[in-house]
Structure formats: C-alpha cells, structure tokens
C-alpha cells in the first residue's frame, strides 16, 4: 500500500514529514519527496538517499576519452608514415588539440548518459504518470511506501544485476543499433561477413564505414580525360574496331550482365569463349594509344600491380591472395583474348572492369601489360620472375 500526500507549502510538507517519521516510524528509505524544483538538503528530514557516482564515472571516462583521442592520432600517424620532409606527421600541439576535444566530448556525452542511467536506476516505484500531476503546478508531494517497505527492499537487493541490466538495456540496444546501422547499411558492395576475409591488416574502426564502397566518380567531379568516353552514359553503339567480337564482349557491360556472367561461370579465366580466345588484339597500337594505355594502367591497375607489374603496388599487402605478378610465365603464355576476358569479368579477388572501361580501353590495357611483360623479360633473362 502506498500513501501519497501533496502540499502547497514547503513548511507544511516539512511538518508532515517529521510526523510520519516520529509517529508512524516509517523507514526513511521509503519516503520520497517530490517537487518541481530542487529543495535544500539541509532542512529536510531523512528520506530516500542513495550514493551518487556520476562525477566519478565522468572523471574516469574523461581520461578514457583523452587516451582514445591520443591513440587515434597516433594510430593515423603510425599507420601510414607519409614522407614529410623531416617533420612528424602530427606535431604534438595538434595531437593535444585532438586529444583534448575527444576527452571533452566523451565527458559531455557521459555526463548526459550517466545522468539518465542514475536517475532511472533510483526511481524505484513504478507509478502511473497521472500522479505526477501534483507537482506540475509547483506543489510538493510525499510518497511513502508503508507496509510494503520490507518486501520492496528485499526485491531490490536481490535483483541487483537484473535492475542494472534493465536500466542499461535501452542504451545497449541503442548502441547495438547504431553499430548495426553504421556497419551494415549503406553503400556496400560486399556482404558484411566477407569484408575482412581477404585482408591481412584490417583498419581499426572498420565497422563504421568502408570507403571502397563509394562511387568512384563524385557528384560534382569532371571526368578525367581517359574516362571521358563511356563512363557516364552507357554506350549503345559497338566500337567499329571491335565489331568482330561476339556480343556483348565488344562493349561496356552493365553491372547486371556482369553479375549474371559471374554466377554462371565458376572460374572465369578457365572458361574463355573460343571466339575471344583466338582473337588477336583488334586495337592498333600507336603513340596516342600508348600514352592513353599508360594513363589507364596508372589509374586502374598500378596501385595493386605496381609500376612494373610485379604485383608490388602500394596497397598490395592488404590482400590475402596477393595481386598477380603480371610478368609471370603463365600469364605471358595467355593469349590477348584470355587476358581481355580476365580483366573484363575479374578473376578471384580483382574486381571486374567490364563495367568500368570501354572495350577499347580494356584492350589498350592488354597492350600495356604486354609491354610490361617484355620489360620484365629483358630485366630478368631466362624468363624468371
């Protein structure tokens, strides 16, 4: 049974409170004082009073935030040591700024979080909202739990863990939801579980975003010169040079077509159609084309396969089946058509380029690969790696 009384005057409430304590001998822990503004602690008789931890939590987490901010900047610094002509990438004062801001934002968020957690945890008696009407016009209310005091107390002490879980549950669920939303939803080209499978060195905080998934041409960007044709709009005409190729290998593939092909053919390189396989490179090589081929290689291939095609590009260490050495013997032995087919549909890890470059450009890349293979053979006589 619960008794609640409301007073329009502070002094009256004080008297009643004292009477309840002395005459009815109610446990002070079962007395709750409600008001629309904070009352002074000093003249109040004993009532429900619980220890307050918010300040210690926030102190501790301020330090955690500072450590986190410092680690973030240090990680960025160690992760990719840019040549900075003798200077550290992030000088100490700047490190201090970022560290400081991280600590402050942690403290601010944690103050709010623990404020809500603590006030929720110490709100013991579930009461319908209508009873709060009393204090909405500036009255003071006393809520006393008489006969049920002992029972309620033992329940609370027994169910300590459950109570904490209940109090935190909304935060835990919210946090998980945020993680889920930031990691799983969004422009993502691979399934969630497959993301790091092929990478030996996954970046920290990788759950949050994967920039590889963003479109390679930004909304306000002017296309680069080699991309000018065929990237924005899907070309419908067949290139005259490539008219002899069976459809649709002579044009830009749509993403749907690529998916369909990849689904039907388990390991594309092994299944080159004979028509493509036997075809010599239909695109002629001249000075203009050579230059264009070089730029195309630099933009699309070099960061994995390296300047000389040895598979030693800058991001090569990230991939578990390492990028292929293009000057390898078995790759030299492939025909132009097979190379074309491979880079159109993509082998195991390398993405398909059939929807990214026109057929002509893909054949230009094949030209350039041949050039790299010649250079590799000259550098290492005997055709070794």
């Amino acid at each position: 049974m619960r008794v609640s009384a409301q007073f329009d005057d502070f002094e009256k409430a004080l008297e009643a409170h004292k009477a309840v304590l002395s005459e009815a001998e109610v446990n002070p822990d079962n007395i709750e004082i409600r008001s629309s503004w904070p009352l002074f602690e000093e003249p109040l008789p004993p009532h429900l009073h619980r220890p307050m931890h918010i300040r210690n939590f926030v102190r501790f987490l301020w330090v955690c935030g500072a450590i986190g901010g410092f680690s973030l900047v240090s990680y960025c610094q160690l992760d990719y040591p840019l040549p900075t002509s003798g200077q550290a990438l992030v000088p100490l004062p700047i490190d201090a700024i970022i560290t400081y801001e991280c600590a402050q934002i942690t403290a601010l968020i944690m103050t709010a979080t623990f404020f809500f957690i603590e006030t929720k945890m110490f709100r013991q008696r579930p009461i319908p909202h209508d009873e709060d009407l009393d204090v909405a016009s500036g009255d003071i209310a006393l809520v006393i739990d008489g006969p049920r005091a002992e029972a309620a107390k033992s329940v609370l002490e027994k169910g300590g863990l459950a109570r904490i879980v209940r109090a935190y549950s909304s935060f835990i669920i919210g946090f998980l939801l945020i993680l889920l939303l930031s990691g799983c939803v969004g422009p993502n080209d691979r399934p969630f579980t497959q993301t790091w499978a092929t990478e030996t060195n996954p970046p920290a905080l990788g759950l949050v975003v994967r920039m590889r998934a963003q479109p390679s041409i930004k909304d306000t960007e002017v296309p680069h010169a080699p991309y000018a044709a065929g990237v924005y709009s899907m070309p419908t005409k067949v290139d005259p040079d490539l008219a002899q190729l069976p459809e649709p290998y002579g044009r830009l593939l749509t993403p749907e077509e690529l998916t369909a092909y990849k689904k039907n053919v388990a390991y594309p390189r092994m299944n080159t159609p004979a028509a493509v396989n036997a075809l010599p490179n239909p695109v002629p090589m001249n000075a203009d084309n050579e230059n264009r081929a070089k730029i195309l290689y630099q933009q699309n291939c070099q960061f994995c396969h390296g300047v000389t095609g040895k598979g030693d590009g800058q991001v090569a260490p990230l991939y578990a089946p390492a990028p292929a050495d293009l000057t390898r013997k078995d790759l030299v032995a492939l025909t132009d058509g097979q190379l074309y087919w491979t880079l159109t549909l993509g082998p195991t890890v390398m993405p398909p380029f059939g929807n990214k470059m026109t057929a002509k450009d893909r054949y230009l890349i094949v030209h350039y690969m041949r050039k790299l293979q010649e250079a590799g053979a000259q550098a290492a006589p005997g055709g070794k790696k």
Partner: protein
Amino acid sequence: MKIEYFKASGLPYREIVERCIDPMRSKMRTRTMILLTVCALLVLNGLWRYYVQIRLGLGQAGYTMPVYWATYIVTFVFWIGVAHAGALISAILRITGAEWKSSVTRMAEVLTLFTLPAAASFPLIHLGRAGIFFYMLPLPTERLLWPNFRSPLVWDFFAISTYLTGSVLFLYVTMVPDIAIIRPWFKGWRNKVYTILAWDWRGTQEEWRRMKEAAALFSVVILPVVISVHTIVSWDFAMQMVPSWHTSVFGPFFFVGALFSGMAAVVTIMALFKWTIPAFDPFFTKQHFDFIGRVWMVLGLAWGYLYFNEFIPEYYANEIDKDDYMQWMAFSGRFGFTFWGMIICNVLLPFVCLAFKEFRETVFPMFVLSIFVNIGMYLERWNIVIGGLEVWNPLAYNTSLYVPTITEVSIVLMTFGGVIFGYTLFIRVMPILPIWELLETQSRQTVKEFAGEKVYYFKSGE
C-alpha cells in the same frame, strides 16, 4: 553606495508555470504566421541558390583572385559568435551562482541550438565539392589516407562537433524536468511526445541531486570547449600567411568578440520577448537588462582593447604590411564605411551608452544598441576576412575587388531565415523559460527587514 538586491518575480508557483507555458497554449497570431512564411521563403530561395551553385560551381559566388574566402566565411564566424551566448550564460552564470540567470539560460541555449548548425553549414557551402565533406572525418579508408591533422579546418570540425553535441545535451538534460512539468497541461499527441521526452521524470530529491550534479559538470566541461571553439575558428585565419591575419592575439580577440555579439543577440531576444509575449513580462525586469548590460559593457571594453592591441605591437615594430592594412582600412574609402561603422557600433556606442544605468534599464534603447552591436560585429568580420585579403595584393594580376553576388546574399539570408523560423517554432512546442529554475529562484528568495529597510537575499546552497 547602495547595495542592489535582485528581486525575483514574487508570483505564486502555479502562476509562474502558467505564464511559462503561455506561448505554447495560445493560438498562433497572424503576425507570427507572416514572419514564419517570410522565413520559409528565404530558406527556400537560399536552397534554390545553393542548388544552382552546386550545379554550376563556385563561380556563382563572387570570389576573385585574392579574395578566396568571402561572405560565407564572414557569416560563418558571425554565427559562431552568436552561438557563444548559450554556453556563456548557462555555464558562467551557473558557476558563479548569479540568480538573475534563470530567465535567460534556456533561451540562450536554444539560440546556440539553431545558430551553431547555421554556422557549421557555411564551411560546407564554401566547399567546391560539398559531397565529400566527410573526408574531414578521421575514418579509415582502404588507401589508408587520413585527414590532414595540420589543417585548422580539421580542428574546427572536432571543436564544432564537440560544442554542438555538448550544447544539445546540456539543453536537453536541463529541459527534462520542465517537460515533465508541462506534460499534464497538454492532451493528445503532445502529451505522448512529452511523456517520451520527459524520461519518466518524477521530481524526487534523488533526481534533483543528480540534475544539479550534471548541470555543474556540464558547466565546467563546456566552458573550455566554448573557448576552444572560437580560438580554433580564429586559427583558421591566424595560421595563414596573410599579413593582417597572422597574429597571435586572434584567439582571445575572436573569443571576446563572440561573447560580445552573443550577449547582444540575447539582449535582442529579451526585448522581443518582453514586447511580443505579455505573459513573460515579470521575468524580464529592469534589473535583468541592467545586469546583462554590465556584463555586456565589460565584454565590449575588452573587445575594444584587444582590437587596438592587435595594432599597437605592429605599429611599434614598424611592420609595413600591417601599417598598410590599417591605412587601407581606415582611409581608403573602400573600407572606410565598414571600418568606421565597426568602431562606432562596437566601441563608441556601447561605451557611451552602457555606462549609464538609465540607459541599461530602458528596453528600447538596449534593443537598438544590441542590433547595432551585431551589425558592427558583422562589419568586423567583413573587415578582417575581405579587407585582409584585398589589401594583401602584392602581385600585378591580383587586381579585382570583391563584390558579393546574389547567390551569396541569398544563402546568408537563408540561414537568418532558418534560425528565426526554428526559434519561433521552438517557443511554441517547448518551454523557452526554464520553469524549474524560475521556481527555484522564487523558493530561495527571502525578504527581511533591517533598520526599516527591506532586504532581499537568497538562501545559499546546500
């Protein structure tokens, strides 16, 4: 000297609550609707212009060769300055225990809530490729590229996001009891929304203890954040190799200027509340204007000192660039209007007017002065950004002068419209006066008679 006691409103508690929720319960008047319509049109016009700018490029803004930071950045700094009022009034006045704060804390925080996003939007509008602004986030990429931590823009990003998060949380946490208080006064969907937002607040003393603790923590933590925000904004300039910008005093100078203009914005809103919302009249008395006028005047004097301090060392060091800049600003004719306008609005007028108690206590002149000060602060940023770049003109081909285009003006007006729109609507859905703080002030006010004279004082804290 006669001691002046702050007198609380002295109204019954129920009446305080009723007066505070009056604008939420009354019907919208025609003039409010007209104001909202005009603001909405301004916002739509600005959005259209911004769309055109994205389509056609930054050429739509009037950038010329030496002036590559212009109206957008001027307005960015202006809004950041106004946004500083929130944390200043809530945090400093809370820490110092000034009793008159309770009328102005919430409305200053709400001002931050709307002006800070307006400010933060300008660096993005100013970007040539706004679609990739998130490159400033320190997120891992496949190519292991990180933002340039040496750029003040990245520090800006950190500081502003910290301040925005902190001020929104501060506002919400201190608003929770008020939402619980107003909840039973409304029915229907409003009651449901307030029930969710009130976080099941009951008003027990255990909750109040934590509320006071959280408010104190917020005040202490957010104060250095406020200082860091505007210092870092000033470093956007001070870190550049532009003669009139490259000065170490910019940090405190910008910070004091921000507080100065933020105070002016608060005075503007106080006067508007007093005139347009009759129920709020007892909460904005002569004393409120008097006290805020004193703080305002001190900030104005500090700002004037720092402004001249910026020139004095260079003058004695015989720095030719700065001397050129000064002469160009003051006597060239091109910047004469803005320069002397700034001096009059920010130094002479506040100093002359605010020194008199009669002036500080009268609402209309204070309102006019607050408008003048904010115009002066806008001119100040104009002088620093555009004057600083135009005078730094050593090369022959840097000859064109900057004139803002219609696109820039529209986008600036868009933020003004947006801020006024948001603020006006906020008043109608949330208590713009902190009810529990007003009740607390009222409960602590005590009157006693000493030697035939009434003495108003406040019982000290726990």
